[in-house]
């Protein structure tokens, strides 16, 4: 059934009228990869357990539950309980994936993540989905534009933002090598593909997509795809612009950043996140302490709460689509504006 096609999910009579239930579109295709890759790990004999908090249709873990009902735990709408219980589960030798909206995971459960999961160094893999402003008209309660900043400040926590389904699968396949907790920041499962399936990634090793002498754009998560299109346009306009997919925010691939700073003399970070404390913060902290003294322009949400609207409209409004990213770069490259 095509996702765009609403279907009759049921109907009935009430009083004189009749009702007609129109189902939500099919679940986001990008989330099948979450269940499928976890299933791969189970088939390899890894002690995987998946948990969610009343969002198994949103994150697609229902697909994992159907295959491995005894390895799926439903916690209902009790996210903090889920995160702490995930830590308890992990103490018994299990590798535990706990998924809910990024806003609830990183903000509501911040203390549970810090104290119960990270401080105790458990093999808990937190999946913060629908991050950034992907939940559009749901509003600020459901937006997560602070999660990278919060998660990045927690000692011992690996923080990643894969760009697409192939990147998510690659990092999940690599996760068993990490003897400690991981925060995965992912979108809404509808992100266009950047990479082919079967991609291999390593935590902390950025992907150098382009090299450039005038500017290097460092993008993460959902912003890699539009940044790639923006870089292509800039190159067609005669600019030498590099592009790095910084899928791991922590530990940051410092050599990739410093090499880009030396090569292009100017950096621009792009993230679906506040310009405070996330990827831009991480890069700026590094460059000011260790790098050549280059300007770092941080592009993202500027210390504000997002408007309400459909995600694609919001991306356009905040300059987080290809045109917006290109325009930010042009400010630096052509108009000589200062980085902010």
């Amino acid at each position: 059934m095509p996702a765009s096609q609403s279907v009759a999910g049921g109907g009935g009579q009430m009083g004189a009228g009749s009702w007609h239930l129109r189902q939500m579109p099919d679940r986001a295709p990008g989330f099948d990869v979450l269940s499928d890759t976890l299933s791969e790990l189970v088939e390899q004999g890894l002690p995987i357990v998946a948990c969610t908090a009343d969002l198994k249709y949103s994150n697609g873990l229902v697909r994992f539950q159907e295959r491995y009902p005894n390895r799926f735990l439903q916690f209902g709408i009790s996210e903090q309980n889920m995160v702490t219980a995930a830590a308890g589960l992990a103490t018994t030798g299990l590798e535990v994936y706990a998924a809910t909206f990024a806003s609830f995971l990183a903000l509501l459960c911040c203390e549970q993540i810090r104290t119960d999961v990270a401080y105790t160094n458990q093999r808990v893999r937190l999946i913060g989905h629908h991050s950034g402003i992907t939940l559009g008209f749901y509003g600020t309660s459901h937006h997560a534009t602070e999660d990278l900043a919060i998660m990045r400040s927690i000692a011992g926590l690996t923080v990643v933002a894969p760009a697409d389904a192939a990147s998510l699968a690659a990092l999940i396949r690599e996760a068993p090598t990490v003897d400690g907790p991981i925060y995965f920041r992912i979108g809404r499962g509808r992100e266009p593909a950047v990479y082919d399936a079967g991609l291999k990634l390593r935590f902390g090793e950025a992907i150098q997509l382009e090299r450039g002498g005038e500017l290097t754009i460092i993008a993460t998560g959902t912003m890699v795809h539009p940044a790639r299109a923006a870089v292509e346009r800039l190159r067609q306009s005669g600019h030498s612009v590099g592009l790095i997919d910084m899928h791991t925010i922590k530990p940051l691939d410092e050599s990739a950043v410093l090499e880009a700073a030396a090569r292009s003399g100017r950096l621009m970070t792009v993230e679906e996140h506040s310009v405070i404390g996330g990827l831009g913060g991480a890069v700026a902290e590094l460059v000011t302490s260790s790098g050549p003294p280059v300007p770092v322009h941080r592009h993202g949400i500027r210390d504000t709460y997002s408007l309400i609207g459909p995600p694609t409209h919001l991306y356009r409004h905040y300059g987080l689509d290809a045109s917006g990213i290109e325009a930010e770069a042009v400010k630096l490259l052509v108009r000589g504006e200062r980085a902010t």
Partner: protein
Amino acid sequence: MTLAEPDELQHLRERARFIREETVRLISVAKTGHYASVFSAAEILATLYYSVMKLEKGDPTWSGRDRFLFGKGHAAVGLYPVLADLGFFDAAILDEYARLGNPLGDHPDMTRVPGIDFSSGSLGHALSAGLGMALGSRISGSQFNVFVLLGDGEMHEGQVWEAAMSAAHYRTSKLIAIVDRNQYSLDGVVDEVIRIEPLAQKWRAFGWQVVEVDGHDISQLLPALRAAADLPDGSEPTVLIAQTVKGKGVSFMESEIGWHLGFLDTDDERRALDELRSS
């Protein structure tokens, strides 16, 4: 149910006194600590660690061991001497309690202290962590018990009730909660701070089997804890509501709420130890 032998009861009473005396000694090193919170739970700790829990002396990492989580982690100073006594770490470490670099602090830390099954300190988390362990034991096919000691002030924390609801849903009867109902939190009488009664009714409404005991009477604690520990997995979880006295065993602590956190000067320390030894 096996009735406790008189010798066993006597031994556990003696171990409870050992916990209290060691608590006084350790806090005299740190010069601050939660005496009264330990004293209300001394018989509970002694009964669990010296009779009820499956443990291997000298091997704190044995995978089949029963687990213990300290919701009211601020009373950990009473547990450290027990863990050393069971051979989980060198008793000499106790002598440097809470000094710079010592693994033993006011709250228990599983990354630093052998025998601590889960770190705690922030109230309200431990029942969730215990729930995770009980579910993990079920998934992996092992059958250990998970005991979680909660403070009565901790009942104010919402996460306790999230965990209580989930545990009843999953019928994790290997998860056993004990509420140390000593009546006091930092700001005064718990029920005057925020009322938690009717507590037994609340737990029952959440799907738990409630057993009410005198938390200082080992002849009540021991059979109640053993009965809960012997339940097979898959039925209603059990909570013991243990009526206790904060500061139990030292007369001037029993009656004064300021002793939630404090420090005995030399004369008072002697008086406290005299009372404990003569009890």
